[in-house]
């Protein structure tokens, strides 16, 4: 698909212009994709939460409440953007945009289907993890610049939590990278042509999947690790002082990050856009092949999204010391041992 668009552009413009127009179109496509996915995930979250709590959720705005997200965005745009008098004005205003930009950047190497990928760089996975870890800077900026003890406490907690859990997430990712032998996204997906890593890599990949799920829930500041924005304790933590569009930016960034993490997990563990093949059941495999790859990809992404939403509305919250203890005393050692075992198993050729 990208080739087709490339040819059309080259036919219309000179090569340089074609490149620039191509970049602009790609950027626009990503922005539209993010907005659509944010709207869909906001609606999903509210409906799923409602059904788990025996109530209906948004029902009035649009048929079955589908336009609720637009109503919310409209309301947030009309709110007065207040800056506290003694806040550090430059940092205060930049912080939400920094967090959002970082989330957008991570979309570059992700493969939605064999022909839909912005930039197939050979260090795709490394790029995603390093870029998304810059989001911590934005959170700390927001907490500090708000000139509010509660925000500062919330930002500190959040910073400590994100930095710690990146280690475990990184080790889980490393396990799969090592098993597939490539850092590039397309390389990893191609290596899953005969089965998803979660099935091929059996025990080490399964453990890595569980660790990745827990670590990424913590990185997203979502329950049960949402201490940084817990209303009952610190009145919304680091984004207490933000209102209107700036608050919407944080909100949007959280949902975008949720998508990125889901997409990364899908690429690494669940086969990306590869369809589900079961052994030698040829007829079954051919039917699975008929479903277009981008539907496979988004289907898997929505399943992991559902898992994140399910966690949030079921579990109570962990205390900050319990959170950090879980990471440093349990997840990290288990992850490292798993990595060693996984490498031994791969070297011995005991994976499928």
């Amino acid at each position, binding site marked *: 698909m990208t080739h087709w668009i490339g040819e059309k552009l080259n036919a219309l413009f000179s090569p340089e212009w074609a490149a620039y127009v191509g970049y602009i179109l790609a950027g626009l496509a990503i922005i539209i994709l993010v907005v659509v996915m944010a709207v869909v995930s906001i609606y999903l979250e509210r409906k799923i939460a409602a059904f788990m*709590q025996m109530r209906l959720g948004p029902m009035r705005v649009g048929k079955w409440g589908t336009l609720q997200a637009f109503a919310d965005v409209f309301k947030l745009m009309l709110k007065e953007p207040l800056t506290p008098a003694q806040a550090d004005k430059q940092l205060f205003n930049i912080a939400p945009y920094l967090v959002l930009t970082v989330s957008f950047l991570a979309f570059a190497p992700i493969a939605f289907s064999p022909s839909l990928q912005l930039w197939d760089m050979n260090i795709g996975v490394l790029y995603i993890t390093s870029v998304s870890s810059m989001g911590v800077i934005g959170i700390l900026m927001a907490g500090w610049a708000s000139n509010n*003890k509660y925000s500062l406490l919330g930002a500190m907690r959040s910073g400590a939590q994100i930095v710690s859990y990146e280690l475990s997430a990184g080790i889980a990712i490393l396990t799969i990278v090592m098993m597939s032998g490539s850092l590039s996204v397309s390389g990893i997906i191609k290596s899953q042509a005969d089965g998803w890593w979660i099935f091929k890599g059996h025990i080490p990949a399964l453990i890595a999947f569980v660790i990745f799920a827990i670590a990424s829930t913590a990185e997203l500041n979502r329950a049960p690790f949402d201490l940084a924005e817990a209303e009952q304790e610190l009145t919304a933590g680091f984004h207490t002082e933000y209102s209107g569009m700036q608050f919407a930016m944080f909100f949007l960034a959280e949902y975008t990050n949720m998508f990125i993490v889901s997409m990364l997990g899908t690429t690494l563990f669940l086969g990306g856009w590869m369809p589900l093949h079961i052994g030698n059941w040829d007829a079954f495999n051919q039917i699975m092949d008929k479903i277009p790859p981008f539907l496979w990809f988004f289907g898997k992404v929505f399943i992991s999204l559902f898992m994140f939403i399910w966690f949030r509305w*079921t*579990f*109570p*919250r962990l*205390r*900050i010391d319990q959170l950090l203890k879980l990471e440093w005393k349990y997840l990290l050692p288990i992850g490292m041992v798993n990595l060693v075992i996984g490498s031994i198993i791969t070297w011995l050729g005991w994976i499928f």
Partner: protein
Amino acid sequence: MENIIGSQIIQSSDDEFIINVGPQHPSTHGVLHLQLKLDGEKIVDLKPFLGYIHRGIEKMSESLNYKQFIYLTSRMDYLSAHINNQACCLAIEKAIQAEVPERARVIRTLMAELARLTSHQLWWGSTGLDMGAVSPFFYAFREREMILEIFEETCGSRLTMNYCVPGGVMNDIHPDFVRKVKQIIKQFRDNLHEYDELLTNNPIFQSRTIGVGYLSREEAISLACTGPVARASGISCDVRKKEPYDAYDRVTFDEIITTEGDCFARYKVRLEEMKQSMNIIEQLIDNIPAGEYRTKIKGIIKPPAGEYYQRVETARGELGIYLVSDGTNKPYRIKFRTPNFSNLGALKPMSLGGKIGDLVAIMASLDLIIPDIDR
């Protein structure tokens, strides 16, 4: 049980950080203003500031007559409003030596146990909410709604039911009362396993409440704690057993006492108390004696000059009413000894040395109602 905190005084260092919790705060169950001195995340000192909902109920009662001041007490501990009214009526009946018919006694007891059930259900829901689990709140309110509907049908109001009068109850129960209460009890018993699955057996909830907020038996007695707070520390103090009033002398139920004294123990005591309340209701619901629902008290109520005392067991502890009468139709002095006032004193020893997250868990397990403290 690694972090048994509480009852320790920490030396404060130079990095002190004073934070105000409240008065408007999602987790203080009312308008309670706490000033915390923090050293990092540890709480070094705690001071409560009250008075945000002080309405002067005791002073107001001195200018109202004996039938009127009863309904001010519904607004004190509004979750056990009926039990507060019952206490006042019992005190007045003791003063004027009125006979209450059997039917009225049993009806008052039934409504009191239903009120205790609604209070504990709301406590359970808001405990989950404070810990971060939002869904249990809705599950708790599912059953609570049905009981509140019964209240509305019987007395006209869902929360501040002004149903007790000196001499009995204001109106007779409606014909569908027995059937509906039985239906609710059956449904609640069937759904009780969900309460355990959602919170009690959840490892995250257990790790946040086991070992947190320890209150020893001696300290609880010295602080005059009553109710589930005291019973979880091993003190036997249920007024329904010690000085039975109304129909409590003819029902059998267990007094739930544990000795661990931490948040999880208080949680389990209240869960068990809900089951005991259902037992009491089941024993009484089929045998409501026929007869009068109220003794008509002629004229203006003028108790003889002197002092009168009555205590009852509300959902949170022992409520004592000290009534000083000078022979006129208005009380000379009324003192309400509310359970939450003394339970508030337990907050400081339990939270010192812990973290703010523990403070939230302790407040949820103490189950304070601030209008009861401020009156």
